[in-house]
């Protein structure tokens, strides 16, 4: 089992780079949730080099549950948008300048691609050349951890939309856990970090859904 996991380290590292880049470049929620799930599994494979595989399995399961929470939230938003669209069509049709105000200007793809490449090169330099890597960890874990943190921060910087913020935060936490789990093997900390992941997922889900809540429901 251990030999198999070690042999998967390089493919997992490459996979993590691809998933992190895809999460930064893509906008479709469903696709991003699937990619995030894959990223959690790959991170667990990589982390199993440094901790017992049961802990890695727990982290993968926690990640997949987080993705389930986000997926259910996405489903709720689709329903909310549909209801809001129907209401807008009947009573609150945007007029004149209001149409312009509702337009969303996305940061374009070439810029994001360049930013991802710059972030990746900076991570490589940070880990392999400048000596900021954690000496007690293998290079692959250092690279993966720092890459997820850098690209997660990039995602946070590029958008203030709640779901994007949530995915960025989860990437940063995932990267942090890659670096931290091997140096802090306490089961309490593993459990608490799992709680943190669930906390992030729930808080972000609430922030995503609250604009679709019907006014007066709480009264």
């Amino acid at each position, binding site marked *: 089992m251990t030999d198999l996991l070690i042999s998967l380290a390089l493919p997992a590292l490459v996979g993590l780079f691809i998933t992190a880049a895809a999460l930064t470049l893509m906008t479709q929620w469903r696709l991003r949730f699937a990619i995030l799930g894959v990223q959690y599994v790959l991170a667990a494979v990589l982390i199993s080099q440094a901790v017992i595989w049961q802990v890695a399995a727990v982290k993968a399961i926690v990640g997949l549950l987080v993705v389930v929470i986000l997926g259910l939230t996405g489903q709720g938003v689709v329903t909310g948008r549909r209801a809001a669209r129907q209401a807008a069509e009947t009573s609150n049709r945007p007029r004149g300048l209001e149409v312009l105000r509702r337009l969303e200007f996305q940061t374009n793809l070439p810029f994001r691609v360049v930013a991802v490449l710059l972030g990746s090169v900076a991570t490589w330099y940070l880990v392999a050349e400048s000596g900021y890597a954690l000496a007690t960890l293998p290079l692959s874990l250092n690279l993966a951890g720092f890459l997820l943190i850098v690209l997660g921060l990039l995602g*946070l910087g590029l958008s*203030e939309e*709640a779901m994007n*913020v949530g995915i960025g*935060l989860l990437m*940063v*936490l995932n990267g*942090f856990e890659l670096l*931290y789990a091997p*140096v*802090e093997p*306490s*089961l*309490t*900390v593993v*459990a*608490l*970090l799992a*709680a*943190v992941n669930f*906390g*992030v997922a*729930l*808080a*972000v889900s*609430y*922030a995503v859904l*609250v*604009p679709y*809540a*019907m*006014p*007066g*429901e*709480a*009264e």
Partner: protein
Amino acid sequence: MIPAPLIFLVLPWLAAPLIYLLRLRGWFRAEVALAVTVAIVGALLAGALPLAAPPWVRDSFGVLGRTFVMEPVDRGALVQIFALAALIFLGAGLHPAGPYFLPAGTGILSLLAAALFVRPFLFAAIFLEVAAALAVFMLADEAHPLTRGALRFFTYTTLGMPFILFAAWLIESSAANPGNAQLLVQATYALAAGFALLLAVVPFHSWLPLAADHAPPLATAFLTSVMRLPVVFLLLKLLDAYPWLSQNPLVYGALLLAGTGMVILGALFVFGQQNLGRSMGYALVIEYGAILMALGLGTRAGVEAALAALTVRGLGLWLWALGLSELRREASDNAFATLHGLGWRRPFAVTAVAVGMLSLIGLPLMAGFPPRWALLRLLAEQTPVLAAVLLAAMTSVGVVVMRGLAALTTPRRPDEVIEPQESRLAQVTYTVAVAAVLVLGAFPQWLLPSLTLAAAFPRLGP
């Protein structure tokens, strides 16, 4: 034997779902009563419970290699946390809050207690992070759907946690390798970054004005008073526990610099505000800055001033939140233009808002004055320029409050006749609260017991 810390962890956590169930059943008064009762019981137990009374009570317990210990120094912080929470929950009785306000607030109390008790104490960052996640449920609801401030606060807390945890690991590694001084240098940098994020040091302050404007006022008060206490106590415990940190003059220089930066930025940005929420946000930036300045002095008197400010600021914030919640019943936002003339319709609420803000900035005769005066004196002795900067920042907030009062007491039309519309209960509540702020300003010695907390941090100072 019952571990004393366990009581504070379990009691709010058990009550939170019950409070939510009461809300679901529509028993609003019962919901508020239970939340207030839990907070009051917590405050009383924190003040009176013996830490070790064999065979009934012991002061610690362990879970999977981590220990939760209740020490005498935690008593004061716990009393303040639970008492302030009780006041804010009571306010929710006067101004109905969102469905998750009270359950989430009660659950957070348990996490804040855990943050105070956990050993090694840097693991408090994890509990503060989970508390921040729960706070998002308080900061947005159906009536306040804008979540930018809540998400920024949550983002900065989440980003701060890894730095603190890495610092804990570096400190442990340093204990195992005493010859490697580089580890402690790295730990110091990690702690600086972590606390800069957690304490909203410039440029990580942007969530404060956003949250103060977008979130329900009572939730803002909870976030910026109750939830800030454990962060400051964590910093104090850290300085007290590690001589390599507390005896490093650069640490105090950094605290002073961070505090001064916050005070200057807050003063510049608050001056042009035309919004009661954002004004409070920047006033809070100044307030946080003043507390960091007090700690940065590196003296026992500075720590006492910071602890006293932490104690009384909650009262001003609570008063502001109560008054603003009342005003928001009639206004869609906190802009002065929207609130025009409300001073005549709701004079007691407007007085509460003004007195709350003035107490926060430390106007004479208000509860916030004694600690602010103490800090100004200390700064004037050591660095008069910084005292002048702080005084200018206080004046800046005062000007905005006066401008706000002018807008609130000016009717939209000169011939408009406005009748007072406040309920008798609201009038009595605001009167009592304003009187409490004034009485505490007139008799500051009533606050002195809180200052004795500083005695529990004997190793602070370079």
